[in-house]
């Protein structure tokens, strides 16, 4: 039976012009669509699906499931997608603890994994894999830029704060790698923590010249509101995750002036980005966040590889992915040796455009920046 199917498939492939392109690709997207981190996953999904819709490629099929930000559920979904749905490519995971639970076993089963966000250091160095591509960044990147910015802004000391999970650890080590001043305190909070009174009290007592915090999603909202109410006026610095477009509306004017580092911003000046921001807004009625931009780039990377190679020829498909021959919303886009991007990282400031709070680029923190783990990766 299987033989007949293969024969028919081969015959069909011969008949179709451009056999490689006609091969369907099935993508499994595991992302966070409910619970505390839902805004991030929804943005990544919407960005991804926007590109899929624009390409209108009938050979691309996407299965989307909600991981609820729970590692066990993400693992179950990955197993189901690989065994039952027979996907070729997995993508979508937002949180690094979930990525660590899913990615190593998925790539070991010869599936491609394209990261729309999470990129823990463990997967960038010794644990790198030829089937694993991070389209977004390596976890440390934006925090390294924040450390560099804090030094160049003249801060001699910093109080640093992040959640206790893989990306939180990457965050603080990234910041410290590029920050020249003293670290007064280093605090890890619980992932999903909502009250920061105890930490803010320590910040008040620390006498630091700046505060660096990495608290994505709802955690960032809670921290920013409580910090503004606390009367502590030490300047805050963070990666874009602590102040993405989804958070700004909920924090309100207290966010104005906040400096954050990002590899994407809606005012990066290129035609692809301009069209992306406009079409995203028209399609979903809100401004895209950086997660949406990563989703959009990931889908376009995948589509570019589908144009060049058939997914059943893994080596050719991998080479096509490595070439990254697509128009990125970040302008230029190239992969480094460990298949993480080499890119510019900007400093942004929260501003008000009319009634809408958003981020605006005020400078470049790092140019053509790779990551600290690339040299440990042997592929």
């Amino acid at each position, binding site marked *: 039976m299987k033989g007949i199917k293969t024969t028919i498939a081969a015959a069909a492939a011969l008949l179709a012009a451009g056999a490689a392109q006609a091969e369907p690709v099935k993508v499994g997207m595991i992302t966070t*669509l*409910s*619970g*505390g981190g*839902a*805004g991030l996953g*929804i943005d990544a999904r919407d960005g991804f699906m926007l590109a899929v819709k624009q390409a209108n490629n009938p050979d691309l099929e996407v299965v989307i499931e909600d991981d609820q930000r729970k590692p066990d559920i993400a693992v179950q979904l990955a197993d189901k997608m690989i065994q039952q749905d027979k996907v070729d490519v997995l993508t979508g995971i937002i949180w690094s603890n979930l990525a660590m639970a899913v990615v190593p076993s998925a790539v070991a089963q010869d599936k491609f994994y394209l990261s729309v966000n999470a990129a823990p250091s463990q997967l960038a160095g010794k644990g790198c894999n030829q089937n694993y591509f991070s389209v977004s960044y390596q976890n440390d990147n934006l925090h390294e830029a924040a450390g560099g910015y804090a030094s160049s802004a003249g801060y001699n000391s910093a109080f640093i704060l992040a959640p*206790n999970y893989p990306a939180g650890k990457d965050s603080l080590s990234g910041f410290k790698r590029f920050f020249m001043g003293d670290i007064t305190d*280093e*605090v*890890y*909070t*619980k992932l*999903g923590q*909502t*009250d920061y*009174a*105890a*930490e803010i*009290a*320590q910040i*008040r*007592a620390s006498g630091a010249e700046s505060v660096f915090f990495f608290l994505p*999603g*709802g*955690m960032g*909202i*809670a921290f920013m*509101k*409580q910090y*503004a*109410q*606390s*009367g502590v006026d030490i300047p805050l610095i963070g990666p874009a995750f602590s102040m993405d477009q*989804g*958070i700004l*509306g*909920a*924090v*309100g004017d*207290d966010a104005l002036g906040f400096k954050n580092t990002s590899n994407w911003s809606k005012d990066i000046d290129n035609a692809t980005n301009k069209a992306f921001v406009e079409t995203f807004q028209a399609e979903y009625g*809100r401004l895209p966040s950086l997660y949406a931009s990563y989703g959009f780039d990931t889908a376009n990377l995948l589509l570019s590889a589908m144009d060049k190679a058939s997914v059943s020829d893994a080596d050719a498909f991998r080479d096509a992915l490595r070439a990254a021959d697509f128009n990125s919303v970040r302008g230029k886009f190239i992969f480094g040796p460990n298949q993480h991007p080499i890119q510019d990282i900007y400093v942004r400031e929260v501003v008000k455009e009319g009634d809408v709070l958003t981020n605006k680029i005020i400078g470049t923190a790092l140019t053509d920046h790779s990551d600290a783990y690339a040299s440990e990766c042997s592929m």
Partner: protein
Amino acid sequence: MFSLFLEQLLNGLQSGVMLFLMASGLTLVFGVMGLINLAHGSLYMVGAFACAAVAAWTGSFWLGLVASLMAAAIAGALVEMLIIRRLYNRDHLDQVLATFALILIFSEGTRWIFGSFPLFLSVPDFLTGTVVLGGSFEYPLFRLAIIIAGLAVAVGLFLLIGKTRLGIRIRAGEADRGMIAALGVDIDRLYTVVFALGAALAGLAGAFVGTTQSVQVGMGEPVLILAFVVIVIGGIGSIKGALVGSLLVGFTDTMGRFLLPHLFATFLDPSSATAIGSALASMLIYIVMALVLFLRPSGLFGTAA
């Protein structure tokens, strides 16, 4: 250092008082009706969303606060009359299943109405800023207001239960349901009132907490877990236990997060002290719960089942 310590004590008190608003409703419903209500966190979310929506619409935080009480109480009363009423005579597993389903319904319903992105809710202007409490010791005014409001609600609740006719019925209901029904008390109405009261307290907590945190779908579940820890520590069904348990959990959690990393730093290098200290701090309340259960299996103020 002394003012930092004092500030942390107040933070612990504030977190305990907020937990009490959640836990008192949960323990009341369990004590009077013998019902395990997992959907209590959803009522907290309803309160927060109602407050955020009405405050955004009218521009008044106070109307939002009233709306949070009303919305949670009405949602609670409706849920009790339509669904919960059918569960009193079922075993706890059925109750857990049905109220878990309610969590999903409330969450998806809220997402359907308000979307997946967090709503904006801020502190009213005159409560922003800090107050100086002697010397150089400053404390956020809003947190102080939450402590006072929460303690006022706690006193009100004790008076309600201890001094009023409704309170007598509630206590009688806890002691013997069959008997007070036989004495002519409309037990159905009493149950609806108690459930709505518990819901309103949760809604109020949601509104208070929503001003300092993120108003988003699923915000109720982490608090629900803490509230369960509180009532297990305090003794299920006891309001006094809920108060003591809330304060114990509030202080333990806050002081643990603050002191444990410092404690470990005295004999470990800074980075592992931070890692171990914060990991242990997030477990601390569960360790306390295990200890209490070990020493007093029915909780601090619980009556042996």
